Structure formats: structure tokens, C-alpha cells
């Protein structure tokens, strides 16, 4: 059955828990009640907890390191039993994965994100609604963003941030969440700019999450007409009314440099200008207007003349279709396949991605027309991905570090301010990167804030982060003692030096999480 949090709060906890859980599940009702009240709980530890036994990272620990935000206790045993290939396939098809705990938490914690139709506007597709009969435009996506303006911008940023952390911690669709972060960086938008404050929530839903494991071309199209992107990179102000009007090149340049071809992808300043001309007329209604946030194409602000992009002629008079022609040219360009493949290999293989792996990944990207699962499948099949020497060699970015620590300790968290503050200190809070290139991937950017990693580890283990808690001793026992705990957290048997430090530190679990090995994946 489906009950919204609002209904729940109106009806009262007892009624809903009784309705949902039924008499035979009374014992679970306490946990249920917490969930319904919007208090996320860590999923219970179930099944075999056999820790990794190898001296070095085995294949199972390796895929858990790279495809997820960190292994939870028991993950190694589960993935070992199903086999790494089956795990990769499972993760490449997230829609088939049961994920009710995470979905429920998100649905009940975040009205702003989980109820895209809003409260003031009529439901989509409700034909009998008189407002909608009057304004047919409300049926389109524009109507799905207006409601965001009902929220205070700070509320939306906080909700989006918390939801992002909670999904990374709780979701079974780990590779999907990893890719959501990858594309969030690739199509970076800092919501602190103007009306992106409200609209980034829609971009997150309609562009990034809709396409993270879908098709690149479709995601690119969605991003190009995403209201938040039109604000962030000034596409909304790119118009030509008089012949003397100069197009605003901001979005066009980043589209070529960051989203598709890459900086050395073989385009010229002329191409940037021509692409900008093609995109004139696309704009978004601002908050002073009705249907705020709705994206529109204004024929009268469009440069209707002929254009030439990367050597391809675009005839005069195509109007709004110029956009599709441009994206077609860009997606089919070999530089785009190479650029995306390089970034993926940097993410999943090494900061200096091996050329052979990039080539194989780029080929799969090109051959599949930008199908993301096909591209990733090819990447995960490269020899370079599996090389023993490369395992445990990627420095975790702070978000990955924090989430992997929460997952390794099976922490309960509400991802509220106290936790997010650590991400702020570490320079990696979601949606707070100003420039369109997105948070950097390479280790060198992230090694100056070690102190806050250590402090985070210590605070987490000492239960000193408000809203976040772990049961360290229970975990140690469940994993069969110190050796099991060490191997589970590290993904391999501890070294002699690590074992000694663990015992001498006075806080073994904190030491593991703060240790050099745990900073890597």
C-alpha cells in the first residue's frame, strides 16, 4: 500500500503502522515506525558475514571498491557466492534490483523530491482539472518544475544533499548511484547561481537520475534543455533579436569542451560561435512569470540563418531542430566517445587512464550510440581494469570516503547537517562546486584535507556525529572478532603493521577507517 508521509502525519503513527505492518509483524513495527517517521535505519545485517581472506585485494573486493560506494559487511560473501560477473550484470540493470528500503526513506523524507507534481499544481494528466484545460502547457514538464519554487532554496539544497548521501549509503543500486555522481560532475551545475537554486532539483531528477545508466545522447538532450542548465550556463540569455545581437557562447563552449568533444577534441572558436547561434532562442521562464521554470523555444529570438558546425552544414530555417542537429553531430563525433571513455576510465581504472582501455571503452560507446551500460560493460571487461597492480590504487574522493565508512560500519544516519559538515570541510559536499567542470577526480586535489578524514573516522566510531550512529562492538562480534572486522573494512587481511596499529591505537575501528589503505579503492 502507498501512504504519503503527509497522510501518515495526519493519521498518526499507530494507525499507519498497524495498517502497513499487520498483526503478525508487530515486532517489526518499531523499526517500521521509525521509517515512517522519516528516520532512516540501516538495513539489518543478513546472511553470511565471511570476511575476505586473501592477502591482497581479490576480484570481489576490487569490484566492490570500484563499482560501489564501499562494501557493507556481508557484501564480500554475497558477491563471492554469485560471482563478480553476475554482480556486474546485476549492477548494470538497476531497474531489476529490489531497493525498497532506500526508496522508502527517500519517499518519506523528501516531499520536495519524491512528489514531483507539487502541492499547488494539479496532477499531471488530470484532464478534468479546469486549470489544466485552460493551460494545456501545464501537461508538459514545465508544470513539473514550477512547484519547486514553493520551497525555500536552502530547503531544496539541503534535501537534495541529504537525499544524495542517503541514496549512496542505502541503495542496492550502487553502480547507478556511482554513475549519478559521475554525470552530476560531468554536467555540473552549482545551484547557488540565480534560479538554479530551485531548478537543480529538477535537473537531478529529469536529467541525471533519469539517464545515469541510460543513453548518453538522451541525457545530453535533456541537459541542453534543462531549466537549471539554461540558467547556470546562460543559455536563457542566448538570443538574437536584432542582427547586431551577439550570441551568448557560455553554454556552447562548455557543451563542446566539457560535455562532448573535450578541450582538445578538434573544434575551433568558429564552431563555438556557430553552436551558440544554433541554440539561440531556447530560454526558460523566470520566477516573475507564470509557469516559472518552463523551458520554451522562441522562434523570434532564434538566428534562422544557415550554420556550419564541425564541417557539417545546417541549413537555414530549421528553428528548434537546430539543437537536435547539433547534438547529433556532437554525439557521433569520435572525440566525444574518446572524451567520455577517458573520463570513465579515469573514474574506474586510474587517474592516468591506460590508452588500451580508453580505446576499448570508446569503441563500445561509439558502436552502441552512447549506451552507458554497454560502454561500462566493455570497460569492466578490459584487462587494465582487473590488473592486480592497479587494485586499491585509486584515492577515494571525500564523498566516497565518508560514504564507504558509513557503509563499512553499517551506520545509521539521517545525513543531516553534522554529517554534511564533514563533507563541507573536506571540500566535497554535493552540489557545491562552482565551475562547470565538476569536482576533479585525480588524487592530487584531495590530499590536503586528511585531518578531517581522520577526525571523521574518530567521530563516527565514537558516535560523536549528531544523527549518525554505529554499533561498533556488535559489529566486531558479528564479524567474528578483530581479524574479521579488519578484513571486512580493508577488503583483505590486515598487514602486520596495520594489525599492530589497530591494537595499539585504543580505537581500532577508527584507526582502520583513518588508515592509508581505507583512503584508497
Amino acid at each position, binding site marked *: 500500500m502507498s501512504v504519503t508521509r503527509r497522510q501518515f502525519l495526519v493519521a498518526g503513527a499507530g494507525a499507519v503502522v498497524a495498517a502497513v505492518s499487520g498483526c503478525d509483524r508487530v515486532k517489526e513495527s518499531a523499526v517500521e515506525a521509525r521509517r515512517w517517521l522519516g528516520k532512516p535505519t540501516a538495513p539489518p545485517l543478513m546472511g553470511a558475514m565471511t570476511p575476505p581472506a586473501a592477502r591482497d585485494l581479490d576480484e570481489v573486493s576490487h569490484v566492490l571498491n570500484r563499482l560501489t560506494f564501499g562494501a557493507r559487511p556481508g557484501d564480500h560473501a554475497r558477491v563471492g557466492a554469485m560471482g563478480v560477473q553476475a554482480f556486474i550484470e546485476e549492477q548494470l540493470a538497476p531497474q531489476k534490483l529490489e531497493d525498497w528500503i532506500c526508496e522508502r526513506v527517500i519517499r518519506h523524507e523528501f516531499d520536495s523530491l519524491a512528489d514531483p507534481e507539487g502541492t499547488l499544481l494539479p496532477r499531471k494528466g488530470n484532464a478534468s482539472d479546469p486549470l489544466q484545460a485552460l493551460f494545456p502547457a501545464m501537461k508538459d514538464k514545465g508544470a513539473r518544475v514550477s512547484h519547486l519554487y514553493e520551497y525555500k532554496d536552502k530547503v531544496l539544497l539541503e534535501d537534495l544533499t541529504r537525499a544524495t548521501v542517503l541514496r549512496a549509503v542505502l541503495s542496492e543500486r550502487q553502480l547507478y548511484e556511482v554513475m549519478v555522481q559521475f554525470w552530476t560532475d560531468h554536467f555540473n551545475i552549482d545551484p547557488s547561481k540565480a534560479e538554479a537554486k530551485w531548478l537543480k532539483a529538477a535537473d537531478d531528477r529529469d536529467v541525471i537520475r533519469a539517464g545515469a545508466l541510460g543513453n548518453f545522447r538522451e541525457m545530453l538532450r535533456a541537459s541542453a534543455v534543462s531549466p537549471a542548465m539554461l540558467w547556470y550556463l546562460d543559455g536563457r540569455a542566448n538570443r538574437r533579436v536584432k542582427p547586431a545581437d551577439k550570441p551568448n557562447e557560455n553554454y556552447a563552449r562548455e557543451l563542446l569542451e566539457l560535455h562532448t568533444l573535450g578541450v582538445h577534441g578538434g573544434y575551433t572558436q568558429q564552431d563555438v560561435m556557430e553552436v551558440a547561434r544554433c541554440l539561440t532562442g531556447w530560454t526558460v521562464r523566470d520566477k516573475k512569470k507564470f509557469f516559472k521554470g518552463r523551458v520554451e523555444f522562441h522562434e523570434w529570438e532564434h538566428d534562422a540563418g544557415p550554420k556550419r558546425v564541425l564541417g557539417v552544414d545546417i541549413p537555414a530555417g530549421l528553428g528548434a531542430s537546430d539543437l537536435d542537429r547539433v547534438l547529433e553531430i556532437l554525439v557521433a563525433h569520435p572525440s566525444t566517445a574518446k572524451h567520455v571513455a577517458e573520463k570513465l576510465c579515469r573514474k574506474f581504472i586510474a587517474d592516468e587512464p591506460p590508452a588500451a582501455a580508453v580505446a576499448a571503452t570508446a569503441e563500445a560507446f561509439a558502436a552502441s550510440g552512447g549506451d552507458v551500460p554497454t560502454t561500462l560493460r566493455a570497460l569492466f571487461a578490459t584487462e587494465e581494469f582487473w590488473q592486480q597492480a592497479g587494485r586499491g590504487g585509486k584515492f577515494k574522493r571525500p564523498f566516497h570516503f565518508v560514504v564507504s565508512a558509513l557503509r563499512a560500519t553499517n551506520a545509521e544516519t539521517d545525513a543531516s547537517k553534522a554529517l554534511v559538515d564533514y563533507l*563541507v*570541510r573536506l571540500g566535497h559536499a554535493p552540489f557545491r562546486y562552482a565551475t562547470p567542470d565538476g569536482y576533479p577526480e585525480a588524487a592530487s586535489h584531495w*590530499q590536503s584535507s586528511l585531518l578531517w578524514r581522520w577526525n571523521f573516522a*574518530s567521530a563516527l566510531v565514537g558516535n560523536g556525529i549528531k544523527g549518525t550512529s554505529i554499533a561498533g562492538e556488535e559489529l566486531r562480534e558479528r564479524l567474528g572478532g578483530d581479524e574479521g572486522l579488519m578484513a571486512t573494512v580493508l577488503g583483505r587481511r590486515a598487514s602486520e603493521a596495520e594489525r599492530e596499529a589497530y591494537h595499539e591505537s*585504543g580505537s581500532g575501528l577508527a584507526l582502520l577507517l583513518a588508515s*592509508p589503505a581505507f583512503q584508497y579503492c
Partner: protein
Amino acid sequence: MPPPQAVINGNCDQRRTLVVIFLRGAADGLALVPPVTDDHYYRARPRLGILAKDAVKLDERFGLHPKLRPLESAWREGELAIVHACGTEDQTRSHFEAQDLMEHGGVVAGGWLGRYLRTRPSETRGALACVAVGKALPECLLGAPTVTVMQSLEEFAIAGRTPALGTQLEKLYGMERGQLGAAARDTFAALMRIEAMRTTKYRPDNGATYGRDEFSNGLSQLARLIKADVGLEAASIDLAGWDSHFAQQGQVEGLAGKLAEGLAAFRKDLGARMATTTVVVMTEFGRTVEENSAFGTDHGRGSTMFVLGGGVRGGRIHGEWRGLEPDVLEKRGVLEGYGDLPVLNNYRNVLAAVLARQVVGCGEVDMASVFPAFAVKPMKIFG
């Protein structure tokens, strides 16, 4: 032994620090730096105008609020520069909008100081390169590579009550080669210096005495960090409460006193280190030229900025000034009466000069990244 400073600190001469002080609530520039020889000033402010006989004389035109007298020596010694009629292009006169605009550096994402720290020309970034004194991250630091929001030095330590944890971590990281090992060693070195500070009572140098208020206390913590060479490159601290709509005299006197006494103590305490320290004081907008019926002033446009530190072309008012004649003032909508002090000097041209000073000798600030969509013309505030 702590490693050489060059490793800890990312900036080029290895000791430069920028301290940004934001006067929240819109400080009245015409009270802080009154044009004491302008009759229009006294006509508009018959009850609130600062009299020439009370003000600290700065030059032929301007005086300093009497409560800012502790800054007089910095002015005389050429370490304090003032920019008047300064501010943003924001027309809303909303605190929130104007602060945002100013701290972002325009209608752009992220903060100007955060973008500077990300893009400034230098390879390394110290673990404690950037500190915000207070409870929350100010908007100007959005996007900084790493920021520590702190109220006291207590927060600079490996948390937890187990010193053994630090010892064991130092051992494990000691075995790390490459960048991570070096970064860890820098962090431990910085921690060691701070540990020494935390366990001893702070005695400011040169006989400086700080007030007991929060602002002075924050400044004293920053002075400590600067002198301890932990690699502090940028710090922000607020002094709030300047929104003086009602009976402003006492309010402005109290805050001006705090500001000046805090800064004077800070300058005295740092002594020779002021040569590599820059302090910039800013506020979101100024206040109406004309006083209101409640002995206060309302939201206006231009205000003042102060730049204090080594290398400043001090002892002078920089930038354009056109006086307060009614026809040079900016109209306030359809209302009759005095207009506002116009913004003749854009705050970004002051900040650009300050940032350029931070990187002298090691490259240039990428002004297009720090202040996008604005043609920066740095003012000649530094010699």
C-alpha cells in the same frame, strides 16, 4: 621537526595571509568615514552627522568616526587605505541579495574567495589553508578546496580522547611514499604547532591587548595561526549588527569601537608579520544619505571598504568621489528628498587588487575565473 614552510603553505612567498571581514547588516559608510567638509552631509543629517571637531581628521575632505580612532596610527603610518562610494550593482537593497551577490562576486555560482583558492597559481595546498571563524561557511568561500569552519583552536586536533590514535596513524602514514605520505607529514607538523598553542595561554606580542568580544577573540585566534606558520592563506570573520534603522548613534559607536579596537590589536600583535598580511573590510551596501525620523538610516547604496596591511598605499582615500550634492546622488525611486550615495567604485576592483597582492612573484590571479562576466580593473591600492 616541522618541515620547511614551503611544503606546508601553498602560496608563493609562503607567508601571505588574507583576512576578509564582512560587516553584516549594511554599515553606514557616511558615519564611519564622514565627509566632514561637505555642507550637504550636515543638511541631510542634522542630528546624526559626525562633526568635524569630533572626527579623526583624514584629509581635506574626510574624517574617521571617533570610535575608529584606534585605526589612526595605521592611517598615519600608511598601512590603511579606504575606498569610499564603494559597493555592488545590486539595486534590490535587500541584505540577502546584496550579500549573496557580493560574496559570490556577481550572479555566478560559488564564492569569489573559494574560486580564488581553487584557481590561484600554486601547486600545493596546505591542510589548514583556509579558515572561516564562526559557525557556518560564508558564501564567499563556497567552492574552496578545503575550509575549516571553527570558533576556536580547540577544533584543530585529531578528535577523540585517544592520543594513541594519532601516534599509530603517524606510524602508518610514515610508511606511505609519494604524495599521500608528504601530505600526512605536513598535517602532523601543522597539528604539532597547534597542539603547542592549545596547551599554552596565548600572550599577544608587542603588548597588544584584545577585547573580550567574539570578534576580537576571533582575530586573536587568527593572529595565532598566522604566527604559528600553519599555512593559513585565507580567513573570513564577520562583525554583524550594522542594520541601523533606529537610533543608530549608540549602535554604530559600539560596533565601530569593536572593529577598530580588534583591528588595532591584531595589527600590533602581528607586528612585522603585517607586511605579509592583508585585511579587507567590506559590507553589502551603505545607508541613506539622509537620516530618518527615528534617528537612524535606511538601506542605501555606496559604502566604504578598508584595506589594511603591508604594501598598501595607505593614508589616502582611493577611488572616485563626487560629493553629496543632490544631483550626484542616485535616485531612490519616485520619492522626494535625498538620493543615495552612488556606487562609483565597484567592490570587485578592490578585491582584485587585494588578490593580485597575494600572488606577487608567483604568477597571476585568473581574474576571469574569480570574477566571471565582469571586466575587472584592479584599483591601485598597493604600491
